[in-house]
């Protein structure tokens, strides 16, 4: 211990931090984009990180002074988010994704390899302050598992050999970056994509490309013609578009709930894609940001919002840069900004980066975070549509939802309804990862049989293995067993109703396929560890319960639990359901209960073995 303590990396902490004048101006510019100065807290911490390499104590005090908040609040916010660089982080922060798909692809081995090569323990920093290795939660790159993030850059499909090579290169250079991420889209012959139609095309992220393929026409038409916003709402309502973020709430309905008062209205784009297994929004934002911006324009017009914020998760810096550039491009063309499309409407779009908190994907948590607070969800009612961001009526929509808008308005609700099912119309991007031959994003009409997706479209289970379980909608959805997936009656279709009837949910459409090699206890531990790590800590049942069931699952995975602990896990999980402000506790409890119930025999056998040994 003592040897390690002496060799541990201790950074020098300066007595005070002060922004350079130009950074100071930048901060003021950022503050100007929010109605309250303290809302610029997260971007301000990013500035600290950029300017001084990390967020440290004097830096926090400086930011507190600049934003007029207390240092403790800054400290509280900073400790809430995991993605900011700590003073103890090394020059290169190697963040290994440890969540489901990556874990199944062997991220644990990558992590251990890195630690071993650097001679440090997980979470530690080399004594020279050069390298830090840590495990992080889902990096939204599940089809490229296992995934590694070096500072802010992604490295896909890392092998142990890659690790050694990269470490060598990083040792040699002070400013090493991995090669830019390449994108792929698996072939999907059955259904021509709508949203994903152009993502792989060269230059698809440029406004020229987007405009050339007919982009911004819908928005321009709406803005210039001065259409009645309620008409647009009605159109969306008739199209039956349901939220693509997870809950599946009808978007038009949500818009109609907006409080009728004279407060400013806000449109917030939920780009905090952090549900394990989901990686659709990342692709859209990285490759086709203008599609989103056009969607934002339409939605903002419809709900009479004059300010839109894109809350993008901190782990997606490239996406944030793409969006910012796209906004600048759109501003240059007069689509965004004062007097958009010459309509007299001033529309400001701001990209707001999160910093590593799954709970900020929950809409009220996201709003708290956007206000510069810890990402604590708020009690509903009042719903954000009545009292949301800065206590004003606010609409929070998912990236994919907004991306659907241009085509809906272009082709009309009937066209949209012609795809998918009666109650779940339209197409949806399904992010398939895990044990399938061709993982990736598939845009399919809702109502596609799950079986068909796995076996026909994705090419089935590789290596001649058989199916064991499927997570149909991100790790917060209850698991489906192979029998349930393969059954023809009822046939499980990928739409909101069919999955709800099967006792699970569509969620964000993140499908993780597990073959028969996996140990369900390991999977459960992995999932529950994620929720324990991501619980905001506000409500007692969630704060304590997620940790408890994760520890229980941990002992089960290690085989040191008792058979009676299976029931205990089930009961403890049940105690969390419906007792909290947001649904994170339910999101942890429901899959946990489904796993221990559906795979009880496997758990019992394992634990009985463990006790015997």
């Amino acid at each position, binding site marked *: 211990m003592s040897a390690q303590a002496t060799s541990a990396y201790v950074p020098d902490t300066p007595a005070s931090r002060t922004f350079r004048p130009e950074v100071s101006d930048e901060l003021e510019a950022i503050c100007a984009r929010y109605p309250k100065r303290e809302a610029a807290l997260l971007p301000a911490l990013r500035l600290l990180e950029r300017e001084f390499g990390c967020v440290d104590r004097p830096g926090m*005090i400086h930011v507190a002074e600049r934003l007029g908040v*207390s240092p*403790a609040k*800054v400290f509280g916010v900073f400790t809430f988010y995991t993605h900011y660089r700590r003073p103890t982080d090394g020059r290169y922060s190697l963040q290994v994704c440890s969540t489901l798909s990556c874990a199944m692809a062997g991220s644990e081995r990558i992590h251990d390899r890195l630690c071993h090569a650097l001679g440090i323990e997980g979470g530690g920093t080399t004594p020279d302050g050069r390298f830090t290795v840590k495990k992080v939660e889902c990096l939204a790159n599940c089809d490229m598992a296992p995934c590694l993030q070096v500072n802010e850059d992604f490295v896909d499909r890392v092998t142990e050999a890659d690790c050694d090579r990269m470490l060598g290169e990083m040792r040699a250079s002070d400013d090493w970056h991995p090669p830019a991420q390449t994108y792929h889209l698996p072939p999907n012959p059955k259904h021509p994509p709508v949203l994903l139609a152009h993502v792989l095309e060269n230059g698809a992220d440029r406004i020229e490309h987007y405009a050339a393929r007919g982009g911004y026409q819908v928005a321009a038409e709406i803005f210039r013609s001065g259409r009645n916003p309620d008409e647009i709402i009605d159109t969306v309502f008739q199209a039956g578009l349901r939220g693509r973020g997870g809950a599946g709430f009808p978007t038009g309905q949500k818009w109609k709930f907006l409080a009728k008062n004279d407060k400013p209205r806000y449109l917030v784009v939920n780009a905090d894609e952090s549900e394990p297994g989901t990686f659709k929004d990342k692709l859209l934002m990285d490759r086709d940001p203008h599609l989103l911006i056009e969607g934002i324009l339409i939605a903002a017009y419809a709900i009479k919002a004059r300010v839109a914020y894109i809350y993008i998760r901190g782990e997606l810096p490239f996406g944030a840069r793409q969006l910012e550039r796209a906004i600048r491009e759109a501003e240059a063309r007069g689509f965004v900004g004062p007097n958009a499309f010459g309509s007299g409407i001033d529309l400001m779009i701001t990209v707001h980066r999160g910093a590593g908190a799954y709970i900020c994907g929950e809409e009220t948590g996201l709003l708290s975070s956007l206000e510069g607070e810890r990402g604590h969800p708020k009690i509903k009612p009042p719903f954000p549509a009545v009292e949301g961001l800065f206590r004003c009526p606010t609409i929070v929509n998912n990236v994919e939802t907004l991306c659907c808008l241009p085509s809906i308005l272009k082709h009309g609700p009937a066209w949209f309804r012609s795809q998918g099912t009666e109650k779940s119309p339209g197409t949806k991007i399904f992010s398939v990862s895990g044990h399938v031959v061709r993982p990736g994003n598939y845009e399919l009409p809702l109502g596609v049989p799950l079986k068909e997706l796995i076996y026909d479209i994705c090419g089935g289970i590789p290596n001649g293995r058989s199916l064991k379980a499927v997570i149909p909608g991100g790790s917060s959805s209850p698991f489906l067993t192979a029998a349930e997936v393969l059954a023809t009656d009822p046939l499980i279709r990928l739409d909101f109703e069919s999955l709800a009837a099967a006792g699970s949910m569509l969620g964000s459409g993140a499908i993780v396929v597990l073959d028969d090699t996996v140990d369900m206890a390991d999977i459960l531990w992995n999932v529950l560890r994620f929720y324990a790590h*991501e619980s*905001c800590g506000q409500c007692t*049942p969630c704060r*304590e319960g997620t940790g408890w069931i994760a520890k229980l699952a941990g002992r089960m995975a290690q085989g040191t639990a008792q058979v009676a602990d299976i029931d205990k896990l089930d009961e403890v999980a049940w105690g969390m359901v419906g007792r909290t402000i947001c649904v994170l506790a339910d999101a942890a409890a429901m899959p946990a209960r489904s796993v221990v119930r559906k795979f009880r025999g496997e758990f019992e056998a394992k634990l009985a073995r463990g006790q015997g040994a």
Partner: protein
Amino acid sequence: MATYKVNGKVAEAPAGDKLLPHLIDGGTHVPHYCWHRGLTPAGNCRMCLVKVSNSRKLEVACMYPVSEGLEVTTEGPDVDAGRQAVLEYMLINHPLDCPVCDKAGECDLQDNTFKYRNGHSRFDENKVIRHTKDLGPNVKIWGNRCISCTRCVRFTEEITGTGELSIVNRGDHSVADVHPDVPLDNPMSLNVVDICPVGALIDKNFLYQARVWFSKKVPSVCTGCSRGCNITGTVLHNQVKRLQPRENHDVNGFWMCDAGRLDHEWLSGTDRLRVTKGDAGDLARRLVAVRDRNGAGSVAMLISTAATVEELHLAAKLAQRVQAEVYFLGKVRGARWVSPSGFAIETDKTPNTRGALRVFELDALPPASGVVDAIRAGRIKAVLSINGIHDADWPEGLVDLAPRLELAAALDVCENDWTKVCGSVLPSAAWAEKSGTFVNRDGRLQRIQPIVAATGTAQPDVVWLQQMLIELGERRTAISAEGVLREALRGIDYRQIGQTGVVLDAPSAPAGVGK
């Protein structure tokens, strides 16, 4: 107003109001941690679960709005099961170190656990360890005990506006903390200890001083400034161990300042006067003798504004009898401090300036410096001081002029330069040792009562002054402080004053008496 039902009984409250305060006011027991009447509700502890007719699941009463026809159930197996579950979660990472926790005995978590849990835990895992450290000069945190209710955080944000506290980390590592370089050091910081529903935040001054179940709690009024915050004193072995605010919305709300809270240490200090020098009757005779020798106005009385209304009344009688000139001794310190929530700390650090104005029927109190001038002028030949302030603003030169006096006498609580030169010194009971009333700056008459017994031969000034008056034939027998109050303010007795006081007249706050 909406009509709703609580456990089948009809109740009324404004629609849209949160349920919990109305339930509590209606006498229903609803356990709660994060909710505090003086703070905005947060709804995060999930303890105040009740069943409402509008919802399938249990709802938290602190955030649920009252609506017409709502039916609320606050007890029964469902509700108890919900609370039990929440308590179980709350306890799994709680260290359960009640034996060494100062909160034990007055801890909400302990009480509710006793009520709802069976003493059994299903938790076999390792507990999360959080920090134990000083948050500031007066407050220490035991992070393991913290239940993240955020009462303290909201207090520093909403009441003091200083925001030194925040919840840091997330999940089960959440704990209240300060920024490492900015300690919790505001004039009201110790209130967070009172509102902490568990033993996470502890008053370092009270740390390990007493187990509360051995101690006694006595209501009184703070004498630290003219605000007159209502307080409760905790006493053990005849020593005041701590002072806490007592709820009074007309004076201090739920709070008090740190200075007032810590203003009890001198009560058992070594400089307290414990031995009588001289004798009350003799003193009275000598005062009269001085008057007889030198004529009316040759005697001065220097009365502190820490004297109770009763003492002032008797002092006025004495002054009349010996034809004394009366001057007043005060204590004015610092600048007025007002929190964003409106809680004020006054500069007049004596509790009864207004009472003195009223009893002596003056518009302004002659300051103590007048005595010095009068002695210098040769007018005053005897000075009797009546002082209950342990560090009063004595007028400069008074002590040096003592040799020019025929008689220097003091009724005082602590030894000071003046009592050292006095021929007669009668030790007085301090505020915590006597009964009496004060009029605060807003004209509210409030009552103190003995928290501890006086040491040595110290007596309340009411006793000393009555002995003097008896000697002079002004009175036949000594009566209680309450009797003196009835005499001083006709028609008011202690029962009427009660625990929260009565307003005497419209306020015009005096600034206190300078040197």
